[in-house]
């Protein structure tokens, strides 16, 4: 097990090295950074001076080493536009995104697995058919349409929930949360549902397919022949066996939730990192883009590591060897 984790860690380092190289190359390929920093009327001397000051005349490898060295200390430089340290900006915005992703992941898991099991067991009931038909909407409609429709229905017509922002937040010093106030919960509900819908559908369909598969296996037949109750067969024997492939997909998709949050945050004006990234793209704010890239990759790598460890917990065949 230790060997396995070490191997995965080594792979993670490789991934991070490649991603950091790509983020670094943004500085050189997305326009001239100096142009982005100084105004139209800057003199040639000023430009040269800034180039020298930023170290842009050094060999490319030296620059990359400096980028990685700084990044390891959490320093991604100054935002071109806001002129504040990028890491401060990210840390300010991060709680909003993490809470949004967390809440929508919970929604997607609870409803996805629950409905998946239900539709897998009662595959011919009208409720299953209805759930499956409706779930098609979840996959086929783009996130922003769903978001806007939800805003229109719940915020404009019914006026139950706010349409944008985080609502009331509580500052815990190192973390601002919207999960401690009623107003905050009201605000997070619509964006979280919007974000989770696609994942929920995916998990639902996957769990259902796995469930149908597992219900046909010999050990389920044998469990029935021993007179075990349906509840035990469905939730003890079948569900756990569906989880191994489901964990893989869920792991990858929590990463996707973070990536998709860019659109959702824009639609709901949610002050998270996704919205910040979109604004950075608009203004070619390269340091923010580069940092966001590294940060998302880091999350992906971290989640995948957790998923790999979860395999060990769930499946004794991996844990104990063949």
């Amino acid at each position, binding site marked *: 097990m230790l*060997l396995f984790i070490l191997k995965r860690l080594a792979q993670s380092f490789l991934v991070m090295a490649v991603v950091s190289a790509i983020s670094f190359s943004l500085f050189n390929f997305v326009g001239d950074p100096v142009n982005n920093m100084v105004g139209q009327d800057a003199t040639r001397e000023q430009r040269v001076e800034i180039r020298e000051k930023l170290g842009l005349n050094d060999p490319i490898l030296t620059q990359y080493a400096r980028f990685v060295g700084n990044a390891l200390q959490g320093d991604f430089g100054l935002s071109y536009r806001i002129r504040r340290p990028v890491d401060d900006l990210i840390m300010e915005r991060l709680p909003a995104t993490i809470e949004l992703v967390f809440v929508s992941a919970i929604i997607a898991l609870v409803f996805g697995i629950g409905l998946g099991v239900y539709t897998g067991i009662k595959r011919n009931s009208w409720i299953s058919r209805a759930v499956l038909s409706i779930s098609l909407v979840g996959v086929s409609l783009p996130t922003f349409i769903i978001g806007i429709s939800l805003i229109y229905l719940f915020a404009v017509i019914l006026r139950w929930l706010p349409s944008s922002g985080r609502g009331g937040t509580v500052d815990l010093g190192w973390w601002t949360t919207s999960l401690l106030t009623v107003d905050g919960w009201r605000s997070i509900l619509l964006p979280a549902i919007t974000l989770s819908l696609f994942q929920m559908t995916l998990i639902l369909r996957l769990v259902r397919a796995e469930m149908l598969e597992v219900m046909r*296996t*010999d*050990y389920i*037949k*044998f*469990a*029935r*022949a*021993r*007179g*075990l*109750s349906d509840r*035990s067969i469905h939730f*003890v*024997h079948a569900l*756990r*066996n569906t989880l191994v492939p489901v964990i893989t997909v869920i792991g990858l998709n929590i990463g996707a939730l973070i990536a998709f949050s860019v659109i959702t945050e824009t639609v709901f004006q949610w002050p998270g990192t996704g919205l910040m990234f979109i604004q950075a793209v608009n203004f070619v704010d390269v340091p923010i883009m580069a940092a966001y890239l590294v940060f998302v990759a880091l999350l992906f790598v971290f989640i995948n590591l957790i998923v790999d460890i979860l395999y060990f917990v*769930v*499946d*004794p*065949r991996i844990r*104990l*060897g*063949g």
Partner: protein
Amino acid sequence: MTELLRINDLDVEFPTRHGVVKAARGVSLTVAPGEVLGLVGESGAGKSTIGNAIINLLERPGRVASGEIVFQGEDLRTYDEDRMRKVRGARIGMIFQDPQTSLNPLLTIGQQLVETIQKATTHRGQAATAHAVELLEAVGITEARARLNAYPHQFSGGMRQRVVIALALAGDPDLVIADEPTTALDVSIQAQILDLLKRLCRERALGVIIVTHDIGVIANIADRVAVMFRGEVVETGKVAQVLGAPRHTYTKSLIAAVPRADRRLERFTSVDYIEGSGASGAKIDVRSHWLGKGRRGDPNIRDVIELKDLNLEFVLQRAIRKKNRKVVRAVDNVSLTVQRGEVLGLVGESGSGKSTVARLIAGLYNPDSGLIRIEGTDVVSQPRSAGARKARRLVQMIFQDPYSSLNARMRVRDIVAEPIRFYRTTESEAETRRIVGDLLEHVGLGAAAATRYPHEFSGGQRQRISIARALASRPEILICDEPTSALDVSVQATILNLLKDLQEELGLTMLFITHDLPVIRQMADRIAVMRNGAICEVAPTDRLFAAPEHEYSRHLLDLMPRMDLLDPDAA
């Protein structure tokens, strides 16, 4: 009470799009306590259906159409699902064929046992655990208490089947239905499991229904036997009477088709009673045909296959420290020669390395050390050389599983023609097609099979396709890896006869791998016995059966099901 279970005039139907299929018609059976009833028949005869119908677990959309299932004086057909669930496990236990798949891989056997015990009996908590330990001990698992925390994959196949039996007994049932309980197991394990079932049956006065296709199992364990054919019970009676002096034509031909270990026959007896099982199709004259020409064997070389000090290890578990690594010596210093035109039998239990040897010769694995010569050409040291490639082409394989060894998305023509096209051994596509047609005729399928897909054929027919495909590269050497172990006895007989004929017509050298001693007795000229990757004994067939030298060969021969019952004189 002398009667535990009585089935009266049972009909089971499977409604399909093409009308209703009757899986069982007018079946009547009885089982008494302490009695083993054998239910024997070939695949599709409806024998498993009966077992599933008794505990009301028929696969949908199957249903019992009419008849009675009287268990301990009550008709189970009047029970609803809730009452039926209390019958399952607690009063009727069930054992399935494959111990690899019957246990939930994610739960320890203790968890599975305790759950079943708590469901079916009044034992709770510690008492349930204690009962689980007792059950494991009763089925012959040592250190039972420690083994409770083990997962199914940590047990061998035979041990797993013991756990399955313990689970079936967990609710202390009065009737146990065992559906092919030993089919997936080796002979020595089979003998142990059958002994165990018989002992439990006597000790606990259990009624046992044992469903099997294997006459040998019936002869060993059953008191009475019911023979099923196409959903009907054609004959019932005491085992000695039914096997020794069968009355029904089907029973007669079925028993005649069982390969005999006690004497050698020219050909396998095929089951004539079943229409369409015999081979049809025009035979070709192999000497003048493309198939007989251009074969590359050099008659001066006598030893067609030569293996010397062959070794191969498989790594089971990798680790940084050497002592934590687990390796298995799949092939351990194997030296063997096969002479031209000879059929060499390779016999052993699963894990003995016999298939690995075949794969080494076919070039599917590379040995860690040692020498393989095919037709005098060393194929190990320079596996990519032209000579080695040429030699390899002379070796063809026929695999065990007729379902996974054919590409389901290719037409039969393309499957058979692939080696011809790959080696460009014909002048034109028209000639290729003509040859494929001839080959299909010759193996008894008929040229019309060429445009169809593998899934349209039965297991035996698929094995014929595999044989045609192997012949298409004009081999000198045919390696048959358990070619008939997935087939019914009647089909097995026709396939083995076909292989025998081909071997004689074409003068093929054959390596025939099997765990089935009666089959190998009929097929092979010489036999090599393998165990744990090493060869124990190589001897001419008759000498091995008459006077085995190695202790393990004797052990294997002892385990063969006794066939005395089949002789009318003995019975």
